[in-house]
């Protein structure tokens, strides 16, 4: 059984290798190969899952040592896997949802000349993510961590010829790098403290070291988590990441990348438990991001950006929960899984909508689509209900638990966090309803504006071009949008709808399933530990509060977007709205605080290098040259001046002799 664990990672990795190195001859079948390998890793996962269920709680963890990676005196890094319940949860989520997204992409990308490479990247993404969650030491996790960063870079920038895409990809990678720096420092701290960085000894030894050290490690880990999970202050890349093809967004947001941070924190629970200050910071970050993302989500008209905002805030929920310690870990993961389902569903739905509206993303140009794409409508709707936490659906169970846990933290913090969580729930309900209404209800707004308005509108996929076509003129003409004068909404092909349906099921039932005599809690308890805390409010009270706020949110949204028609051109909006449209000025801040100074610094250094460092050397050289030039003048070739010097020299000699005799 242990040996299978390696295969989990190996399968998609193999796929990536084959697809990327395979060359054009794989163009025809490549995507199916990729999907198959993703599915294969899912199947293996299921097998292992079954096997794991066979054993009881404590003995479920599997270990497999593959080979010794970096053996240096005292520093032993192995490629070794550890499959416990936590990892298993992720494996299933990643490979499952991942496979669905592969399937979906088959349809979504079929017009794309570089579809083979796209699937290669997708496989790479899965492989890296699986490596991340299966590693049994932090260094290997780091490898997966960066691998995810790379894959996201490749996928976000998949349409490289679009400067915006390339920039977004670079941004994502670099912001993540900042997080990675945190992770590597954390690993170094572990190494110097414990002499190792394998999970088990570190987490076991966490109790024995000082709280200060634990806090340091915890904060560094948090920095890493912020990078990957797009938490404030490293959230800025997430929005731009929408430049990637929609399946990528779905993959990044639902199943893989952004969840890594939550995984890291939960995995390192022992460290955080020992460092309350670190935990507090985690919860604060979570809470802030929660609101931040929600507000951004309210303002965006781009459907994907709106969903991105929601992702941000949902991850905020998870981080918040993870920060609560043993009370929250389980629910963080649980919300992560349910969120995996419905967010994937939502994104795929959004993608399907765009697919139908030939890549229009502006919701203000949607409207009344429910008649044209029923399947999308239903699945998207279910996802919507799930995410706002409509009682009975997945989101409800997980989010409700988190809010409870937040209150259960106790003390003022408890109240504040709980309040924030509730507020977040309300806002979530608001903006998701807004998305829903603007997209599927109301009268169609895409007919109203003259043809070409849609065509001209910011195209998402200008790259869709016949394989044969000469690449050079691809960015001058965009066949996909250029051709279509007018949108003709239609339902997407099977390969796209099926995954959506599956995910919809997930988003409806998963939560309930998990909460059934709290099976999920028991499932994870051996790994993360769990305690119920003592909530100042009864569960019922919290639940009802949640329901109330979400209804208010929905009502507000309905009042604004349901009753009166939605203007096609966005109104100027309040200051907050405008700020939120610009992601609450995060980029402007970064630009002013980091980019500009950085540019000046580098330019200045170039000058210094040329003038000061190099100049010092050249200056010395010049000085010598000048000096010798002067000396040269003395050798004027006139006998008499030589004679003078001789004569003077004699005089000096005599003077010297006299002095000597005088002394």
């Amino acid at each position, binding site marked *: 059984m242990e040996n299978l664990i390696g295969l989990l990672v190996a399968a998609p990795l193999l796929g990536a290798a084959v697809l990327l190195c395979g060359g054009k001859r794989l163009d025809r079948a490549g995507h199916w190969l990729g999907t198959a390998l993703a599915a294969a890793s899912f199947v293996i996962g299921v097998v292992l899952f079954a096997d794991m269920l066979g054993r009881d709680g404590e003995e479920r963890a599997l270990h497999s040592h593959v080979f010794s990676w970096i053996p240096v005196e005292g520093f032993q890094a192995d490629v070794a896997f550890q499959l416990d319940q936590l990892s298993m949860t992720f494996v299933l989520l990643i490979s499952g949802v991942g496979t669905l997204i592969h399937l979906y992409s088959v349809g979504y990308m079929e017009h794309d000349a570089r579809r083979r490479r796209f699937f290669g990247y997708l496989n790479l993404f899965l492989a890296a993510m699986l490596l991340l969650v299966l590693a049994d030491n932090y260094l290997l996790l780091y490898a997966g961590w960066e691998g995810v960063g790379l894959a996201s870079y490749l996928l976000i920038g998949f349409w490289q010829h679009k400067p915006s895409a390339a920039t977004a990809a670079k941004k994502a990678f670099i912001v993540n790098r900042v997080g990675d720096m945190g992770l590597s420092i954390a690993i170094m701290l572990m190494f110097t403290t414990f002499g190792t960085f394998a999970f088990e000894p570190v987490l076991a030894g966490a109790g024995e070291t000082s709280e200060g050290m634990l806090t340091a490690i915890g904060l560094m880990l948090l920095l890493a988590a912020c990078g990957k999970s797009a938490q404030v202050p490293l959230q800025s890349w997430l929005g731009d990441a929408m430049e990637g093809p929609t399946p990528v967004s779905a993959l990044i947001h639902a199943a893989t990348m952004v969840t890594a941070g939550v995984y890291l924190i939960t995995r390192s629970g022992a460290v955080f438990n020992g460092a309350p200050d670190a935990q507090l910071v985690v919860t604060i970050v979570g809470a802030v991001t929660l609101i931040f993302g929600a507000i951004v989500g309210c303002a965006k008209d781009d459907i994907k950006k709106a969903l991105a905002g929601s992702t941000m805030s949902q991850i905020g929920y998870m981080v918040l929960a993870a920060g609560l310690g043993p009370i929250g870990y389980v629910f963080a993961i649980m919300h992560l899984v349910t969120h995996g389902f419905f967010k994937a569903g939502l994104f795929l739905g959004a993608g399907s909508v765009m697919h139908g509206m030939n890549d229009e993303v502006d919701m203000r140009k949607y409207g009344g689509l429910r008649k044209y794409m029923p399947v999308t409508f239903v699945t998207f709707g279910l996802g919507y209900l799930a995410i706002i936490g409509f009682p009975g659906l997945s989101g409800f169970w997980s989010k409700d638990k988190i809010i409870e846990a937040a209150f259960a933290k106790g003390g003022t913090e408890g109240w504040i966090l709980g309040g924030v969580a509730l507020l977040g729930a309300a806002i979530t309900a608001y903006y998701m309803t807004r998305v829903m209404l603007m997209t599927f209800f109301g009268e169609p707004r895409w007919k109203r504006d003259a043809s070409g308005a849609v065509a001209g509108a910011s195209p998402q996929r200008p790259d869709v071009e016949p394989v044969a076509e000469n690449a050079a003129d691809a960015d001058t003409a965009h066949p996909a949008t250029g051709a279509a004068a007018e949108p003709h909404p239609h339902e997407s092909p099977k390969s796209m709808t099926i995954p959506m349906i599956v995910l919809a099921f997930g988003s409806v039932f998963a939560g309930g399933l998990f909460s059934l005599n709290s099976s999920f809690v028991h499932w994870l308890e051996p790994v993360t530990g769990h305690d119920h805390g003592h909530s100042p409010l009864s569960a019922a009270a919290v639940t009802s509060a949640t329901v109330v706020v979400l209804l208010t949110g929905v009502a507000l949204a309905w009042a604004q977007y349901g009753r009166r028609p939605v203007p096609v051109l966005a109104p100027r909006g309040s200051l907050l709205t405008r700020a939120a449209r610009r992601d609450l000025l995060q980029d402007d801040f970064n630009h002013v605080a980091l980019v500009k100074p950085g540019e000046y610094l580098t330019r200045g250094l170039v000058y210094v290098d040329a003038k000061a460092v190099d100049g010092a050397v050249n200056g010395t050289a010049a000085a010598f040259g000048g000096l010798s030039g002067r000396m040269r003048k003395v050798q004027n070739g006139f006998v008499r001046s030589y004679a*003078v010097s001789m*004569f*003077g020299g004699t005089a000096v000699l005599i003077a010297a002799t006299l002095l000597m005799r005088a002394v």
Partner: protein
Amino acid sequence: MSGLSLTHTLAQQAYSTSTGEAVQFWILGSVAVIGALCTILMRRAVHSALCLAGTMIILAVFYLANGAYFLGVVQIVVYTGAIMMLFLFVVMLVGVTAADSLKETLKGQRWLAALCGLGFGVLLIAGIGNASLSTFTGLGEANAGGNVEGLAGLIFTKYVFAFEITGALLITAAVGAMVLTHRERTERMPSQREQAEARVRSGKQLPPLPAPGVYARHNAVDIPGLLPDGTPSELTVNKTLRARGQIRDVSGEALADLAALEQRAEERLERDQDTEDRAAHDRDTEEAAK
């Protein structure tokens, strides 16, 4: 007794010199210095040479006074006689009149020279001054057997090798001088025709230069011939004379002579005139008488 007086006189001679010598030293010494100064300050090499010769003669006298009789003579014969003549010879060869300006061309050279010279002199004199030279033994017994013999004794015994070597040196020098000054004609001498062509090419004066002197009234080489208008022509005089400015320009007097000549011719013609009148008048009166 007498021996004692002898030693006494020797000591006397040893510690100081006779007053006569002192007088001679002070007079000739100052002259020598002046000569030296003139040597370096005269603008014409000839004058320098003459001054130097003078200084050397004075030095010869000093040698004699110092009991170096042989050297004194040699000084006069060899130095003043031979070497200085050699100098003069070369000066003539180079051109006696080439008076070089004493204007300094090298920047600061003169000041440096003055400074060095001054410092050097001062140091030297200071050195001699604080050297303990108060006591000295005269050449009394050294020259006892005669100065020349003494020298000869030394030269042919103690310094014989140096002597031989100097001999060799002299020979070498003589040969060297010849080699240096001897000019080997490496190329064929240009024929007359070639010279003529060269002259034409260089646009020089083709016919021989006009002879000096005027109408055979003068035959001195230092008198320029006159052009038809009576002005003197530089070409006719040797350029050395020209350089020396030793040209006697006689054009002026030639013209004066001409004027005087015409003057006299004038007078002569007038006188002939009135004699004829008188003659005519006489003839008339004779005819009237008849």
